[in-house]
C-alpha cells in the first residue's frame, strides 16, 4: 500500500496495512542521532507518508531580511512582516519578536494590508507542480499547506495585539483574519490552476497553550471560526480532506472544529491534556486523530513507559481506523537514537491492521 492509499483509506475509516506515519524532530535531535549511528534520510527511515506541496504564508515584504544587529550567537533583522526579530545563528527554534512593525489598526489599514494584497501570491506554482510530481512518484499523500488566523496574526501583529483586538476592536481582528485567509485560499486556487491534484489541505495555527485556548470558545466561534470554516469548506468543495494543526489544549474546541468541517486534528499535545484514548471513542468517527505520542515520555528513554504510551494510543486510535502516528510535537534531543528506533519498532509491530 502506498502512503497515498494508506492515508486516503484512513480518512475513509477503512483499515490500512498499517497506520500512516509522519514525524518531526528538532535539528539538535537529528545531530545527536547522527553521532549515535543514524545515517541517511530520516523521513524515509520513518516511512513518512506525507508530502507538502506549498507553504502559503502571507507577508507584506516578501524577501526582506535587513540585518540590524548581530552578536556571536544571534542575528537581529527586519523581516518580511516588517518586524524586528532575533534568531539563533546555529540553533533551531522560533524567533524572539523584538518589535512589531504593525502595531495599530491605522498601521494595518494604511500600510500592511495594502502591502499584503500587493504582495500576493506567496507560493511558487511551477515549483509546487514539480513537487507534486515527486510526491506522486513516491506514492505519498500530497497536500496544500498554509497558515490560519492565529498564526498569521501572530506573525503580523503579535499575540498581545491580536488578542486584545478580539475584545477591543473585533472589526479589525476580523478584517485581519478574513484578509489573510482570503490570500491563502487565493494561493491554493492558483496552485490548482497548474493542474496538480493534491490529496488534501493541511493548515497550521497554534491557537492554544497548555491551559486552554488563547481566547474563549465563544470569542473563537464568533470571530475566527467563520474563516476556519471557510477554509475547510474550500477544501471540501475541491474534494479534499482538511487537517488542522494546533499545539495546546483544545479539548473544549473539538465540537467547533467538527462543526467547521475539520477532518483531522494534529499533533494533539499530550502534555497539554490532549489524549487520543479519550478523544477516539468520543469523536474518532468524525475527526481523525494524528499524533499524541508524548515527547516527554519519549525523553525518559524508559522502554516500559514508552511501550505503554505508544501501544495504548495506537490501540485507541486504530479502533476506528482513523489514526496517524506522530509525536505530540517535535522529538527533542533528549531522546536517544536507540529509543527512537524502539518507538518505530513498536509502531511496526502494533500499528499493523493485519489486512
Amino acid at each position, binding site marked *: 500500500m502506498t502512503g497515498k492509499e494508506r492515508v486516503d483509506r484512513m480518512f475513509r475509516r477503512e483499515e490500512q496495512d498499517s497506520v500512516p506515519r509522519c514525524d518531526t524532530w*528538532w535539528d*539538535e535531535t537529528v545531530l545527536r542521532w547522527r553521532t549515535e549511528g543514524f545515517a541517511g534520510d530520516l523521513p524515509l527511515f520513518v516511512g513518512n507518508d506525507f508530502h507538502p506541496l506549498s507553504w502559503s504564508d502571507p507577508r507584506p515584504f516578501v524577501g526582506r531580511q535587513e540585518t540590524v544587529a548581530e552578536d556571536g550567537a*544571534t542575528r537581529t533583522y527586519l523581516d518580511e512582516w516588517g518586524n524586528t526579530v*532575533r534568531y*539563533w545563528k546555529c*540553533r*533551531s*527554534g*522560533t*524567533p*524572539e519578536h523584538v518589535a512589531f512593525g504593525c502595531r495599530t489598526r491605522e498601521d494595518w489599514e494604511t500600510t500592511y494590508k495594502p502591502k499584503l494584497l500587493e504582495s500576493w501570491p506567496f507560493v511558487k506554482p511551477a515549483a509546487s507542480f514539480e513537487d507534486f510530481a515527486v510526491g506522486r512518484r513516491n506514492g505519498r499523500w500530497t497536500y496544500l499547506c498554509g497558515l490560519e488566523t492565529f498564526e498569521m496574526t501572530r506573525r503580523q501583529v503579535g*499575540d*498581545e495585539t491580536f*488578542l*486584545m483586538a*478580539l*475584545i*477591543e476592536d473585533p472589526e479589525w481582528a476580523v478584517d485581519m483574519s478574513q484578509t489573510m485567509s482570503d490570500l491563502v485560499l487565493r494561493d491554493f486556487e492558483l496552485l490548482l490552476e497548474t493542474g496538480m491534484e493534491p490529496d488534501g489541505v493541511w493548515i497550521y495555527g497554534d491557537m492554544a*497553550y*497548555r*491551559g*486552554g*485556548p*488563547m*481566547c*474563549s470558545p465563544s*470569542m473563537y466561534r464568533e470571530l475566527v471560526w467563520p474563516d476556519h470554516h471557510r477554509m475547510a469548506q474550500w477544501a471540501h468543495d475541491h474534494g479534499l480532506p482538511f487537517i488542522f494543526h494546533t*499545539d495546546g489544549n483544545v479539548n*473544549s474546541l473539538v465540537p467547533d472544529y467538527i462543526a467547521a468541517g475539520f477532518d483531522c486534528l494534529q499533533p494533539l499535545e499530550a*502534555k*497539554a491534556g490532549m489524549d487520543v484514548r479519550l478523544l477516539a471513542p468520543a469523536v474518532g468517527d468524525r475527526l481523525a486523530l494524528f499524533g499524541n505520542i508524548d*515527547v*516527554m515520555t519519549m*525523553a525518559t528513554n524508559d522502554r516500559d513507559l514508552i511501550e505503554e504510551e505508544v501501544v495504548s494510543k495506537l490501540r485507541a486510535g486504530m479502533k476506528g481506523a482513523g489514526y496517524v502516528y506522530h509525536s505530540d*510535537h*517535535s522529538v*527533542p*534531543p*533528549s531522546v536517544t537514537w536507540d529509543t527512537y528506533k524502539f518507538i518505530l519498532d513498536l509502531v511496526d509491530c502494533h500499528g499493523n491492521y493485519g489486512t
Partner: protein
Amino acid sequence: MNPLESLTDAVVRGDRREAVRLTSEQIDGGSPPKEILAALVAGMDTVGDRFQRNEAFVPEMLIAARAMTESMAVLEPLLAAQGIRPEHTAVIGTVQGDLHDIGKNLVAMMWRGAHFNVVDLGTNVAAEDFVNAAKDHGADIIGLSALLTTTMPAMRQTVQSIREAGLHAKVIVGGAPITAEFADSIGADAFAPDAATGVDIARKLVSA
C-alpha cells in the same frame, strides 16, 4: 458600587480609560493611596480567579493588566512620596537558549498586578545573570520560564546556580514543557501551571 469598587470593576473589565479616570479622581478626592492600590490589586485578583475558573482568558487578562499598569503610572508617584513600595521583589526571565516571552510576560504582568516589584530580564537569560540580578535587587522570588523541551536543561542549570550562590529567593518555574515532577527533580520551590496560579504561589512563598 462605591468609587473604589468601581475602580476594581474597571480593571476587571479592562477599561483602561475608566480605570485611569477613577484613579485620578480618587487621588484628587484625597483617598489614601494604599486603598486605591488595594482596589487595583483586587481587580487583578478577580481576573486571576476568573482565569483559573476558565471564565476569563488571555485577552481579558491582557486588557486588565494594561488598565492596571496605566492606573499605576498615575498612582506610583503618590505611593513613592508616602514611602509605599512593593514589599517583595521578583526577578523573572526566560532561560538561556529560549527566545519565547509571552508566558513570561503574562506572569510578570500578573505579579505587577499583585504589586510585586518585578525585574524582567527578558529572554535567553544566562544562569549567572539570574543570580546577579537576584543579588542586586534582593529578590524574594525568581521566576524561570522555558517553552521548549530543548531548553529544559538550561532551567536545571539555572536552579543549580541559584542554589550554589546560596540565595534565599524562592524559585518558581513554568512553561509549556514543565511539570510539577520536573520542577521537583531540578530542585525548584514551585511550579506554576499558568500566570494566575503564579500569583497565588508567589504570595504563598513570600509569606511562608
